[in-house]
């Protein structure tokens, strides 16, 4: 894991000191709100419906136990005892008082965390596959690349006033768990015919108002060209991107309006300028970073305890079947800890739960934790012999929900329960769907199904790439929920199609129930997932179950 250098520490400390002064000057009246607002946003501090909100970056979703304990401390000391993990591998605190924020940032800086560039038209927290360094299927760990990009993009003088915000995601595996096709730049680590590691680069993906799937701009960028090439992309966008209309300012629109080839030409022109400026220090730095991400010393131990518990304990078995993923090291497993117990707010963890997770990471997980964009916590390296004890501890802390990848493992943005931009609530919809399916005892039969809910068109809840997406809108002063179908955020990424008219807050949960029950009738075997069935059959039969009245009308018309 990466440890801050003296330079990193001094830089983050300097920013905390600056912000402390800025907050003091805002409170004593020497700074007006218009002057203060961009300064607080540069430090991740928003003003929401009921309070300020502090968004803290968790770089590429990776945490040590001491960092997780500090996140717990912030929740307990300066917030209301919990934090909300987001789809961008950040954590948000919903209730800080303005005067406490400098102390919160100081506590974060003390463990190498910060809230820099978690807002504003800058390069945001670089995200990565949450199974990085542990996944069986990866070519290389994406985190050294993400850390290199973090260092390059943090306070980059050319990129502090981009046309709009800019998001980068990295995957080290062909199976994409980082949704790289929905990012401004998506990076996939690849290996060429000569066995050299390089990067496939995508640009112009994004969700929001105008969802688009990223396009491959280069099939293979060599290590020494990665930073100059990324700098060339952002520089080209910085010049070409529109500043006249905020809704057309993201790079996806720049690429779309100019065409990929013209945009690539502009990037290559910039590359001729950026490449000579990189002397090779970036490659040297990358090697130094990479060394810090060396895998831990794997333990070689028998797994009998795991096998015995798996046979004897049905609760453990159910949890192991859904929440464990194959690990690259013999005898190990990747543990996904669900923050989606039915009825719970997706992505929320209490201070006590965060501390319990930190303890578990320290005791059983080589001191590593990850936050997934799906709003769960990952213990990436757990030896199988420790799993029964770990599971027992998770149960004590109400963290043992066995539902990863199932109906109740729902992504939901904060929605209008907190967010000033939201047009409707999303949390209660997620809670009710999860509770309903728990009642039906169906979700293991239904199998893999990704439901994603956003409370506005900006799509923080990734609804466009949900197998079932739900978008909350304000229709004439009433909450209304649109359903999209067939979206996907993996390597087969697709944007979901709108199913039809929206549903009221009372209608949306029964509508999702009809849809899922309808799928059970439509699938050709229990092995065919919702998404596979949708892709085979198309939208018509799904719309028919979603809108039975229209279907009945159509049938009557056909009969007449």
């Amino acid at each position, binding site marked *: 894991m990466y440890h801050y250098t003296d330079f990193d520490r001094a830089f983050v400390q300097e920013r905390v000191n600056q912000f402390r002064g800025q907050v003091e000057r805002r409170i004593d*009246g020497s700074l*007006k*709100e218009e002057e203060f607002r961009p300064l607080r946003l540069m430090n991740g501090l928003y*003003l929401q419906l009921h309070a300020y909100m502090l968004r803290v970056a968790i770089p590429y979703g990776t945490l040590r136990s001491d960092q997780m304990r500090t996140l717990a401390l912030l929740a307990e000391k300066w917030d209301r005892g*919990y934090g909300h993990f987001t789809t961008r591998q950040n954590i948000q605190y919903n*209730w800080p008082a*303005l005067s406490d924020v400098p102390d919160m940032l100081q506590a974060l800086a003390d463990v190498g965390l910060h809230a820099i560039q978690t807002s504003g038209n800058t390069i945001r927290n670089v995200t990565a596959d949450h199974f990085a360094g542990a996944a069986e299927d990866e070519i290389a760990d994406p985190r050294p690349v993400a850390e290199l990009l973090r260092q390059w993009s943090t306070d980059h003088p050319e990129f502090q006033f981009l046309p709009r915000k800019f998001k980068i995601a990295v995957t080290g595996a062909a199976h994409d768990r980082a949704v790289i096709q929905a990012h401004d730049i998506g990076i996939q680590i690849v290996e060429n015919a000569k066995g050299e590691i390089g990067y496939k680069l995508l640009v112009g993906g994004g969700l929001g108002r105008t969802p688009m799937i990223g396009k491959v701009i280069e099939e293979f960028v060599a290590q020494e060209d990665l930073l100059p090439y990324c700098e060339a992309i952002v520089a080209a966008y910085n010049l070409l991107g529109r500043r006249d209309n905020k809704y057309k300012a993201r790079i996806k629109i720049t690429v779309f309006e100019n065409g990929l080839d013209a945009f690539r030409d502009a990037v290559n022109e910039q590359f001729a300028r950026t490449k000579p400026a990189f002397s090779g220090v970036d490659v040297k730095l990358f090697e130094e970073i990479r060394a810090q991400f060396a895998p831990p010393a794997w333990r070689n131990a028998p797994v009998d305890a795991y096998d015995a518990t798996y046979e004897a304990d049905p609760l453990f078995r159910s949890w192991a079947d859904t929440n464990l993923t194959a690990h690259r090291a013999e005898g190990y497993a990747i543990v996904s800890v669900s923050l989606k117990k039915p009825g719970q*707010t997706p992505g929320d963890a209490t201070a006590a739960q965060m501390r319990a997770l930190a303890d578990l990471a320290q005791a059983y997980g080589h001191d590593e934790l990850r936050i997934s964009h799906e709003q769960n916590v990952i213990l990436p390296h757990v030896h199988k012999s420790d799993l029964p004890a770990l599971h027992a501890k998770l149960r004590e802390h109400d963290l043992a929900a066995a539902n990863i990848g199932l109906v109740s493992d729902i992504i939901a943005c904060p929605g209008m329960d907190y967010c000033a931009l939201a047009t409707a609530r999303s949390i209660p919809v997620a809670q009710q769907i999860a509770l309903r399916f728990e009642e039906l005892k169906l979700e293991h039969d239904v199998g893999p199904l990704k439901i994603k809910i956003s409370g506005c068109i900006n799509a923080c809840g990734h609804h466009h790439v949900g197998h079932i997406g739900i978008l909350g809108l304000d229709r004439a*002063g*009433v909450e209304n929920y649109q359903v999209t179908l067939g979206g996907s955020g993996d390597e087969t990424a697709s944007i979901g199609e709108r199913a039809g008219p929206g549903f009221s807050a009372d209608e949306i949960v029964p509508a999702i129930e009809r849809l899922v029950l309808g799928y059970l009738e439509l699938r050709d075997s229990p092995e065919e997932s919702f998404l596979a069935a949708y892709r085979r059959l198309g939208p018509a039969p799904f719309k028919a179950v979603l809108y039975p009245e229209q279907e009945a009308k159509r049938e009557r018309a056909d009969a007449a």
Partner: protein
Amino acid sequence: MPRKFTPKVVTANRLLEGDAVWLTADGRWTPDMREAELLDEEAHAELRLLVAQSQADLVVGPYLADAVAGTAGPEPTHFRETFRTRGPSNYAHGKQVEL
């Protein structure tokens, strides 16, 4: 034709706590919307908004929000404003337990 003026309240978020507050007739900022001044006249509403905007040391982002007269005082007409009077629906936090 200009749109007919509908009654309003002046609302904002408090600078230090960030919570929602409303402007009263006697110029206080209250966390209880029912104590707010209901503004029936457009010119007066604009004037009260100017007063609010001059208090940047107390509040952030004042604006006029639609409201109607209720039995105990002004009430919101839009669900967003209703949520601001009570807090989030997923926890018993905010005004629903603090007022």
